């Protein structure tokens, strides 16, 4: 799981002992930094769109469009509707083109700079990296992450009321896996360096970064402590993992009740940073076409339905249970990590108010929450 730290060498170990000073960048300099960075990277940053929603999108390269986009960047603690997973695992992508029997592979590997992703989403990415490397390697995903630079923006206040990263120990600040991490203060960001690549980045764009006055590390600890306390939603995450690891722990009635309430829209799976399921199909016309894949969801009735019509998970509740058991039980059993990163998007996006945190409360506190 050291993907974000490929150059981990002697230099990096020195940094961990605190030899690298905390840097500082003025908020007003961020635009100029990104203007420089787009020359070398595909830069992704949270931007407010016409509808007022914040999406993690690529910055355009042309000057006029770039200026407009930079004005729309939102680094404050605003809800990004879906996680940044679609940069590496797009909702719809081409696997290869075929023309009269000839196959042309479509693999994308441009250098990508993620500016301002949240610690929970970083955790989701690291989790997915591991998944796509396991068993057979997935070239499409792994090519996209080949040259990836991650700037995390820690959350001062939880962007969603459903956030429970402090309980899941995935936020509100990242402890590893990033190249740089921004810690917000009123006029500037204090910058923690998490890798050799991060150090090189600061050297390269040194005109934007200054040394911090003494005591910055104490300021950072203080900010992180307050940020942690500002997350009101708390669940007993470790307890649920332990309880779920016992076979058949959750009573069937719970799943049946959730199964009755769920409307099977798949929204929770689309917004989830660690959901990786996909469907495969061909687009085809006149001997030429493309093999495509797109997001799929285990709550859909057709997800397990076989050609004969037989469906091993034909009951709604069987499909509703799969999501909870996968994230909290099987992922944990297989990797020692939970597949839930505590971002809370499943709850905040759910039309019928079902979500992972409520499920955890229901199990650990033995009370009906949904």
């Amino acid at each position, binding site marked *: 799981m050291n993907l974000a730290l490929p150059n981990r060498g002697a230099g990096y170990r020195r940094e961990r002992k605190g030899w690298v000073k905390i840097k500082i960048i003025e908020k007003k300099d961020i635009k100029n930094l990104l203007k420089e960075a787009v020359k070398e990277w595909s830069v992704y940053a949270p931007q407010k769109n016409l509808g007022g929603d914040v999406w993690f999108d690529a910055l355009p390269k042309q000057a006029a469009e770039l200026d407009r986009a930079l004005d729309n960047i939102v680094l404050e603690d605003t809800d990004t509707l879906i996680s940044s997973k679609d940069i590496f695992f797009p909702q719809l992508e081409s*696997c*290869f083109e*075929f023309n009269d*029997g000839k*196959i042309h*592979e479509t*693999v994308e590997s441009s250098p990508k700079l993620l500016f301002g992703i949240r610690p929970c989403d970083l955790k989701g990415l690291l989790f997915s990296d591991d998944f*796509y490397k*396991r*068993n*057979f*390697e*997935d*070239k*499409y995903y*792994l*090519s996209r992450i080949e040259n990836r630079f991650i700037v995390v923006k820690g959350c001062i206040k939880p962007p969603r009321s459903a956030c429970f990263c402090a309980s899941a120990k995935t936020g509100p600040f990242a402890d590893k896996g990033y190249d740089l991490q921004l810690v917000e203060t009123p006029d500037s960001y204090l910058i923690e360096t998490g890798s050799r690549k991060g150090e090189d980045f600061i050297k390269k764009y040194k005109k934007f970064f200054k040394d911090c006055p003494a005591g910055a590390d104490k300021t950072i600890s203080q900010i992180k402590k307050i940020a942690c306390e500002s997350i009101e939603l708390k669940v007993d995450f470790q307890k649920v993992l332990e309880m779920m690891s016992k*076979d*058949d722990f959750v009573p*069937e009635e719970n*799943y049946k009740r959730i199964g009755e309430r769920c409307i099977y829209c798949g929204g929770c799976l689309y917004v989830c940073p660690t959901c*990786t*399921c*996909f*469907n*495969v*199909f*061909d687009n*085809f016309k006149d001997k030429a*076409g493309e*093999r495509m*894949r797109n997001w*799929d969801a*285990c709550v859909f009735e057709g*997800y*397990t*339905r*076989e*050609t*004969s019509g*037989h*469906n*091993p*998970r*034909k009951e709604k509740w*069987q499909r509703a*249970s*799969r999501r909870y*058991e*996968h994230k909290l*039980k*099987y*992922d944990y*059993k*297989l990797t020692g990590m939970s597949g839930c990163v505590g971002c809370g998007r499943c709850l905040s996006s759910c039309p019928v108010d079902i979500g992972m945190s409520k499920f955890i409360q229901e199990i650990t506190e033995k009370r009906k929450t949904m």
Partner: protein
Amino acid sequence: MKNEYIPYPAVIEEVRKETFDTTTFRVRFKDKAFAENFQYKQGQFMEISVFGAGEAPISITSSPSKKGFLEFTIRAAGKVTKGIHNLKKGDSLYLRGPYGNSFPFEEIKGKNIYFIAGGIGLAPLRSLINMVFDNRKDFKHIKLLYGAKTPEELCFKDELEAWKKVPDTEVWLTVDKSCDGWGCRVGVVTELWKDTHVHPENAVAIVCGPPIMIKFAVIELQKSGFKDKDIIMTLERYMKCGIGKCGHCNIGEKFVCVDGPVFNYEQVEQLPHKEGVF
């Protein structure tokens, strides 16, 4: 990095009709060296592409003891399998694999073997059956218990006749609906327990068929005294990628495509049945 999703071109060199909707295709990779070096194990499957129709996982029915070609017995059921049925000798299709684990072979040497199959479920077993017959002296008594809907729908009819003639080998057939001249039993596969003795001593049972058939075959085998670990089956599951990524074939933390498709019943029992194993 190898792109596991890219299939390799192959050509259909023989088409044999098994039943009104089921056909066996013999294919060979176009690249000669690749075809000769290609290896697979009994019970594994390939992802077969017909561009435009899509891709589907199909078990290899030929025996690994025969090299150079692959055989697939395919029922025209969905978009891809119908697409394959539209192809004829000399046409191209595209393959990647082999994927999945395999039936035990070395481990079952010296044992009595019961093959229990329903319908097209005989196709994946045929790979192991022919491998066993190619090494006949290494195995004890062999019984095949095979059921289909009608006599017409029995696959591999010539081979069924040939297998009967192998020493120490019995072939027992049954159909749901008989026709004139049918001399065998009428009823589901487990009805064959009335025709022949099914004994667990030094034996393994290898089962493949529709989910409901597997379920009842397991019950009968257990009643006959078979231990769960000696009941071996290959599971069917809706599958897309074949390499443990797309998620469709997951049961608990297992992927049928990577951890299976072959499981013994002891392993099957440990899968979360609420997720629907059969």
